[in-house]
């Protein structure tokens, strides 16, 4: 109906697809206008097909010349697994909106530690690069569960003045969590202006607690459940400094020492049952072919 009258001008083609592991994959999507507009710290909302969910994904890279946006996705639930199956090179997204959120603050920082935990390596990369380009001294700390999950370490290292890699089991780099890496860096340098940490909420909370005694300004990028990403639904609300903020328009970056992480983690569990239900259903392969909508029982 509307689709006929209103064709999308941009077909959001996947021009590159790379798999880093059996759960992590990279999509490079053609969207020249967005590639021009994107800044580190911003994200997009993606719908892979018309019946799909709108999900937020951080802009892990952008290439203004190629006109592309790079997303790195972890397949954890129905939507991200279905995307893993379907979004091969040449496929199209149904919708991609952005760049959303307030760009990260880069200027005026002379020495910075950029911390990426697991998948968080991807979103923190463009910030590390931007800091480097702005002339800052960049210390990269990235952590993975084990060697097999490591990706982008060369890419990341190339924008860092110092680089520390950590793994839970010691199979690569130093053994320990990213906080071990932060500790090494903070003990060596007493003039760090800022720590930026992106990863799972547990990891961001740990980093925040760790840097607090050092009094170093720490920034985290919050990832609450979102629907529209335009400030319209309030689903992404987080508690920062005791106030309700909307992560999609007031963030996603916030001062870590003021964030209520327990609140964030509780709210991420809101749809746990439904997420499981939809995933089970999908795994059983019983995706019923879409009947045309407008189900109007009793009509």
């Amino acid at each position: 109906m509307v689709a006929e009258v209103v064709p999308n001008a941009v077909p959001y083609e996947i021009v590159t697809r790379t798999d880093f592991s059996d759960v992590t994959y990279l999509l490079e999507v053609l969207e020249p206008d967005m590639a021009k507009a994107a800044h580190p710290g911003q994200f997009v909302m993606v719908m892979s097909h018309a019946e799909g969910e709108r999900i937020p994904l951080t802009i892990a890279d952008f290439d203004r010349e190629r006109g592309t946006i790079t997303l790195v996705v972890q397949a954890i639930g129905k939507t991200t697994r279905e995307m893993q199956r379907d979004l091969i090179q040449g496929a199209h997204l149904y919708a991609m909106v952005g760049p959303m959120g307030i760009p990260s603050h880069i200027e005026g920082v002379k020495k910075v530690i950029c911390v990426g935990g697991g998948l968080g390596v991807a979103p923190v990369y463009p910030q590390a690069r931007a800091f480097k380009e702005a002339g800052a001294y960049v210390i990269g700390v990235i952590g993975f569960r084990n060697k097999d999950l490591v990706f982008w370490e060369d890419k990341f290292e190339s924008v860092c003045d110092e680089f520390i890699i950590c793994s839970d089991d010691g199979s690569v780099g130093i053994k320990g969590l990213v906080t071990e890496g932060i500790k090494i860096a903070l003990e060596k340098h007493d003039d760090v202006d800022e720590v930026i940490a992106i990863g799972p909420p547990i990891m961001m909370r740990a980093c925040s607690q760790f840097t607090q005694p050092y009094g170093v300004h720490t920034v985290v990028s919050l990832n609450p459940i979102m629907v529209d990403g335009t400030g319209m639904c309030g689903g992404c609300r987080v508690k920062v400094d005791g106030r309700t903020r909307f992560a999609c328009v007031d963030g996603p970056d916030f001062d870590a020492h003021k964030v209520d992480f327990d609140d964030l983690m509780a709210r991420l569990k809101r749809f746990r049952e439904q997420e499981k239900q939809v995933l089970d259903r999908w795994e059983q392969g019983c995706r019923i072919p879409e009947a045309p909508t407008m189900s109007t029982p009793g009509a």
Partner: protein
Amino acid sequence: MAKKKTIRTIPQDRTPMQEQVPEIRARNFAEVSLGYELAAAVRESERCLMCPDEPCIRGCPVGINIPGFIAKIGEKDFHGAYDVLTDTTLLPAICGRVCPQETQCEGVCTVGESLESVAIGRLERFVGDMAIAEGWSAVPYIEPNELRVGIIGSGPSGMACAADMAKAGCKVTVFEAFQQPGGVLRYGIPEFRLPNEVVDAEIAKVARLGVTFRMNALVGRLFTIEQMLTDMGFDAVFVGTGAGTPVFMDIAGESLSGVVSANELLTRINLMQARDFPAHDTPLGLGKKVAVIGAGNTAMDALRVSLRLGADKVMCVYRRGHEEAPARAEELHHAEQEGIEFHWLTNPLAILDDGNGNVRGMLCQRMELGEPDKSGRRRPVPVEGSDFELECDTVVYAIGTNANPILGQTSSLALTDRGYIVANDSLATSIDGVFAGGDIVTGAATVIEAMGAGRTAAAAMKRYLGLRDSTLPYAPAERASSLFGLAPEQRNFVRVQVA
């Protein structure tokens, strides 16, 4: 013309409109009100007295020639009635359904002084629906010019401005952040009040005027308003982004799972089709005992949607009384019929945790009405020692909205201290060539007011661009005759082609 009608000679009772019975409709999403049949519309048209002083026209925010279109219905010239309507309004099938008629046109109808007022909204809807069914639309011959107009937001204000500028010959592009156009008409108002098909049909008419829609474009972030005027080469821009940011109360328990804004609930259902979960992927997470805070149109929609999604008990919690409820009278009435439980003069103090991060209930306080406040409504004051617990597992906030911050963050537009865009009477903003209207200027208002604002801005925009036009887009004095939906002042430089 027949002999003059008087209040005694007209049909005394308002012609009833067919509705689905409450017990059945409360469990489905099909439209509640079924609209007039032809005979009913003609009968109702006979109730209009054709008052020479036309109070109803002044009651309509955009000044529709009400006796004019009703007279055409009486003559069974329905296309003629449609032409009279489209002189002024772009969205008759929509406004006929959703206008708060009792405070606008019907509220001042002469017949209403002694009988029930003429059912102006229902008649307007009848004509609008017939136009959709018959495929009528007011597409004039358009003399193209080289001017380019950008519209931000595809709600009623944006669509109205887009249509007027396209009719004036400009190349118009509408930018919309969502994947589908319509604004609140799409994501807010549910299907049982305003079917998506009606919204689609009205948007298709705008598209037929040559307007291009670009979806998934978040203006401010993808490009700025300033860039539209410079790099992108737009000669003028209209901002109709609506007031969509939901307000919370900052009381304890607000972040519990099970607490949502009405916007989130309605967006999940209307835009993302969560009611078809799991066939559509977006989850809803609605419980069995739902409490909605507020009593405006948004609250009524959240209440009735919850009922239709299978909640056992749906409660409206409002700190003022029934009289003060801001919702359309018809929606309140329908909600009551459908079995919504109303807790008037009740104010929530805290949302209670069940120990697992879910909602167990709400701590409330009884209120009584005191002196009138600034809004003229009597101010609710707490009754000492009246605290009590209301059991529920879902709490929905429908207590109003704030201005969306994105354009403020990304442009030099002057804003009010509450974040709304500052615009003068002709809706020009602080940036030359940029106009704004609808909820983002006035705060949450109505569909017809937003549409009117889009047209007022279009008139100013035409003057700004040096296009021939009168000073007013829909001056009531000029509405007398109609030609394919063109305002008289637009006809002097175009030829008209039958679409």
